[in-house]
């Protein structure tokens, strides 16, 4: 039952372990021309990409801990599983399509096709909004069935986890809105390329998180 916590601890130890490996086989007090020539950047990536990767690590820790809290709380005797509405399958499909649309927008952005980027971003945004609306409908349906947040910890987790996930998507939509407005007001695809690339990754990540949360929610 503590496996999740230890699993997360494992991830964290791995991060530290990666750094540890970076530092073996050195004799730093011996100045070498090879060392003098290094650029001072450890990773071959744009710094915004690294920022996003860092943020995803933080978010993973956050969701992982929620999941771990879920699995620990589930052990208590008063847990009664929630019957999730089937609407969630539709929502999931929306999010999958949104992710695909974003990926397509990313591809055309790299190719520099501005009008295609406009189209792709709009579709991706629309599908994402549909997902969020669908989640709200799912909440409403549950509440109309009397499954309130205070009714059972399973309900409480459902509402809380979907809300936290939705908040992350809303944050993504803010960045989406900026690049979408930009391309619709005449900017070239190239100016939003990086933003679209990173957002695509973010969307895939949130799709993955949703898939895991959804699988966990319906299976328990």
């Amino acid at each position, binding site marked *: 039952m503590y496996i999740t916590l230890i699993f997360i601890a494992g991830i*964290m130890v791995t991060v530290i372990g990666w750094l540890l490996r970076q530092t073996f086989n050195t004799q730093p007090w011996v*100045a070498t021309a090879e060392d003098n020539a290094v650029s001072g950047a*450890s*990773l*071959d990536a744009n710094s915004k990409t690294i920022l996003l990767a860092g943020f995803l690590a933080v978010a993973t*820790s956050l969701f992982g801990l929620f999941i771990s809290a879920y699995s620990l709380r589930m052990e208590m005797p008063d847990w009664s599983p929630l019957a999730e509405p089937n609407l969630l399958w539709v929502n999931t499909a929306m999010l999958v399509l949104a992710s695909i649309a974003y990926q397509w927008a990313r591809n055309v952005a790299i190719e520099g096709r501005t009008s295609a980027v406009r189209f792709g971003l709009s579709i991706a945004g629309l599908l994402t909004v549909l997902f969020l609306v669908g989640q709200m409908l799912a909440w409403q349906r549950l509440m109309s069935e009397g499954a309130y947040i*205070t009714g059972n910890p399973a309900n409480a987790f459902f509402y809380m986890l979907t809300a936290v996930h939705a908040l992350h998507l809303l944050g993504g939509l803010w960045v989406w809105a900026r690049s979408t407005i930009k391309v619709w007001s005449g900017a070239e695809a190239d100016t939003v390329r990086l933003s679209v690339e990173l957002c695509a990754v973010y969307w895939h990540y949130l799709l993955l998180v949703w898939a895991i949360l959804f699988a966990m929610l319906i299976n328990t």
Partner: protein
Amino acid sequence: MAYVAIADRDAQEYDHHEPDTFITKYVWSQDHKVIAIQYGMTAIFVGVIALMLSVMMRLQLGFPDSFSFITPESYYQFVTMHGMIMVIYLLTALFLGGFGNYLIPLMCGSRDMVFPYLNMLSFWVYLLSVIILLISFFVPGGATGAGWTLYPPQAIAQGTPGVDWGILLMLLSLAVFIVAFTMGGLNYVTTVLQARCRGMTLMRMPLSVWGIFVATILGLLAFPALLVSAIMMLLDKTIQTSFFMPAMLSAGEQLSHTGGSPVLFQHLFWFFGHPEVYIVALPAFGIVSDVLATHARKNIFGYRMMVWAILAIGGLSFVVWAHHMYVSGMNPYFGFFFATTTLIIAVPTALKVYNWVLTLWQGNIHLRVPMLFAIGFIFTFIHGGLTGLFLGNVTIDLPLSDTYFVVAHFHMVMGVSPVLVVFAAIYHWFPKITGKMYNESLGRWHFWLTFFGTYAIYLPMHYLGFLGVPRRYFAMGSTDFMPQSAHDLNTAITISAIIVALTQILFFVNMIMSLRSGKKSDPNPWGATTLEWQTPDNPPKHGNWGHDLPECHRWAYDYSVPGYKDDFIPQNVPASGDAPVGRDHGVHH
């Protein structure tokens, strides 16, 4: 090793447009040095409040029932806010937001943080969290008195001060702080990874950077645990969910909660809380290493071991959390695992201590004020570390947990020790930050009174713990096993505490006086090797390096290298040459 050619050096472009108005230069500044000072001042400001709270607590413990403004209600509020402010809003913010911001770009040879705007935002959000925290003193019912660990149910149940508004603002403030920390933290990590100057390999970085860097990673991964527990507790409090809240009574009435697990909160809290100890300790470890090496004129002994120990401690810190919970009612079999991991972490920690001491060995030790504080740190840290071996060993924790032994231990190891490093660091870098020298004799007085005074507080406190005196007691009253002498000891401890608190006035007087009328400092008064001492201007200006970025040619500890005239070679001096010609490295003794 993965080093790559950089296409993306946009943050490194030299910015010729220095901000010129007062507002852009000192208020909405994106300069890491200004942000560092803003962070530092704010942290020290709340730290002083927390210090005053501790004096109030000590007044009650030393002279029970003598002050009408200290009631059980206000006492528990003082305890809680003192702890929370010191751990989070002072030490975390000061080491990472303050020293991290100041030192990372300078020591790595960068112009600034990679994301200066985000960096500025981080400070203002931090300030917001501090303001929310301070507001909680003035809401109806006052600040929360749940203890800094905020354990439910009692944190959100009747019978605890501040249960209506105080706890809500506390949780909100923590959430805001975590946002601020995440913005700052991602920035520090990216800067260390991507924006070092040419030649600055990871293993050439000074240990200060290593300590701050790893502590930041710990913080980024651990603070979400606090956020998760804060969110769930907020829901339990506001809309009556039962994540942590079990079926229970409150003043005889049944509450609507059912089945929640208070122990679950403790797991989440300490999953954050233990790494938090190292979030504070690792920067202190790093900084003290650099201060020791500089003033002993000797390379840090076993640099590689020091880096690996930082990494090992950082990694292990995620698998020891439940040693705070041996008597919490969790599955007792976890005691075996966590006692073992906890005692294992003692090994790399001990190695760091040996290496500091071995750095002094065969050195040429200048006992200036920063060095006094640094050596004082080694002493208090040895003491606090060794008492940790008592508490980490699950069996010995049975009699000692929740007693004054615990209070004495953690104040020694993460109160006094890091604060001594904070002072060492402030005195050490004061000439760089301000361009002025501090007053040496005031600094010495500050050290001696603080060092002896804190030891006089905490050494006897351990023995109250042996006796069995419990912590978090407003008053001991007549307790069967407590002789009168134990009450007298409490009075003596209080007197020491007041002396130590008053001593800090010397520090502020010194800082203010030196800032106004201190002697102008050399750019590199200690003869230090690291890059921040090699800036073209003192104090460094916006962009740090003038037109050309420095290049790193050696590790950070080329002190007293055989065959060289000077006893140090700055990191930016090429291997072929001697110390730069024509520059006076008048070492200040």
